[in-house]
């Protein structure tokens, strides 16, 4: 699946290229070339985040499409691809979700080779902790569904947890006790920025134009077909248009006059000061109505996140009391982290759908496509989303993997409500 070397415009990374760069003192090369908008493209991808870049990469690599542009309003890596908590996993209950995320996890396993860029995939395991025997039953159900689909899952009691994650003492008295957990050992973390940079570099090497600081403001259409996007850098003609704009999906709907089952909510994350290696896995712990998921980055910081802030917003100003809840949950889970300082704290804009599952489908026009509605799951979905969305755009037909992610499911009733929460993007 690797592109032939002759099609790469940039040199391949290898031990030899490192040595050559050292000797020639030309090590610091831009990862991808800067492009200016051309008049016309085969495909214009709106949004230079993980999904947009991966879609463009696969359109070029798998489908031989030559003239592709990725338009980014800000800079590559500014949005959610650089704001998430880097966790990858495929421990979903519903078949539509777990087959899709498993495809994505498998692609992550080989992504460094495929992109010729080290994305630092670390299969350190993801542990969902249970507070009660009832939750253990729920986790067993989810684990069994995964195993039936050929995905690794292991249910652990307290003894198993103590062995697997010695940092965690499940026997400590807690307001919400830890009685066991569901472990997916192939889950783990991937360096998020590297995913953006790796896809951008690989796509550019295949001839994709990556155009930053170019905001799409409108769409030109004739006779039911979109013909061009209007941008802050002038109109750009396109045969096909893909919107992969995450938290801004809602107003793409407004721009096209299509109501969407989406609300944009803030999800925050934070990282502590670096400490020596403490946590070798990813822990997810429900603490009453709040939650914490925690992993230790390679630099040593504990990266943490929790639940949504609770109301639609584009402000990217995270709520302090939600930060407090995440920290409380973290300290309840691992009391030994109580004295560590939080270094940074930020938020991203999530396009939360009304059933919590993504949208990859045509959007109103025959040649306009939407790749969005990623809710919490965007980062871990990037490789599968890019490949599947590219197939939809290139062939006009959605591959089986994403058939369930259509927009019509909200009218037909085939919603993918993983949490069984009903038509709400956020519950309080």
């Amino acid at each position, binding site marked *: 699946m690797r592109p032939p070397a002759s099609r790469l415009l940039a040199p391949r990374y290898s031990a030899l290229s490192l040595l050559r760069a050292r000797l020639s003192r030309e090590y610091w090369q831009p990862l991808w070339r800067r492009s200016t908008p051309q008049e016309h493209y085969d495909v214009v991808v709106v949004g230079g985040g993980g999904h947009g870049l991966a879609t463009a990469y696969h359109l070029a690599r798998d489908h031989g499409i030559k003239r592709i542009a990725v338009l980014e309003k800000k800079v590559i890596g500014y949005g959610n691809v650089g704001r998430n908590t880097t966790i990858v996993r495929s421990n979903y209950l519903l078949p539509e979700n777990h087959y899709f995320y498993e495809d994505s996890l498998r692609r992550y396993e080989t992504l460094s080779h495929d992109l010729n860029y080290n994305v630092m995939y670390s299969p350190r395991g993801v542990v969902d902790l249970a507070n009660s025997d009832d939750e253990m039953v729920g986790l067993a159900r989810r684990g069994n569904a995964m195993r039936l689909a050929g995905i690794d899952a292991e249910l652990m009691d307290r003894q198993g947890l103590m062995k697997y994650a010695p940092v965690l003492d499940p026997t400590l008295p807690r307001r919400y006790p830890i009685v066991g957990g569901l472990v997916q050992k192939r889950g783990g973390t991937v360096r998020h920025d590297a995913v953006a940079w790796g896809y951008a570099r690989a796509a550019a090497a295949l001839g994709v134009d990556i155009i930053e600081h170019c905001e799409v403001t409108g769409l030109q259409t004739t006779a039911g077909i979109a013909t061009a996007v209007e941008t802050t850098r002038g109109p750009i003609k396109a045969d096909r248009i893909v919107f992969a704009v995450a938290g801004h999906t809602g107003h793409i709907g407004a721009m096209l006059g299509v109501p969407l089952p989406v609300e944009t909510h803030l999800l925050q994350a934070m990282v502590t000061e670096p400490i020596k290696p403490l946590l070798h896995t990813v822990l997810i712990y429900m603490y009453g109505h709040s939650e914490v998921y925690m992993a230790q980055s390679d630099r040593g910081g504990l990266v943490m996140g929790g639940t949504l802030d609770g109301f639609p917003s584009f402000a990217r100003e995270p709520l302090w009391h939600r930060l407090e809840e995440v920290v409380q949950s973290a300290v309840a889970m691992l009391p030994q982290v109580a004295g560590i300082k939080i270094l940074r704290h930020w938020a991203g804009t999530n396009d939360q759908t009304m059933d919590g599952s993504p949208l990859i489908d045509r959007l109103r026009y025959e040649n306009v496509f939407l790749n969005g509605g990623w809710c919490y799951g965007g980062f871990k979905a990037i490789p599968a989303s890019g490949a599947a969305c590219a197939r939809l755009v290139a062939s006009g037909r959605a591959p089986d993997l994403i058939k369930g992610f259509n927009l019509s499911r*909200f009218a037909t009733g085939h919603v993918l409500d993983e949490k069984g929460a009903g038509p709400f993007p956020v519950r309080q």
Partner: protein
Amino acid sequence: MLLIQCPYCGPRPELEFAYGGQAHIARPLKPADLNDDEWAAFLYMRVNTKGVHAERWRHARGCNRFFNALRDTTTDHFLAVYKTGEARPALNTAGGHS
């Protein structure tokens, strides 16, 4: 922390409130008369405005009342609050944030 103006209790900390979704969505009087698309529009489709958004809030840890608010979703500034059943107030667009 945001201070939210409860129309009954006055300015109170955000902690006491719960978001209640987009405002002014009327439940169809005869759901059976709707086709699937109309029902999906009622149940799932949202305006998701980037800008001034009319929405419901509940003073859940105070007087427990639902009310409506106009909030700028780009800044989280509350521009107006009004009681359930009242019409959406006109904003002084030149005045900006209150």
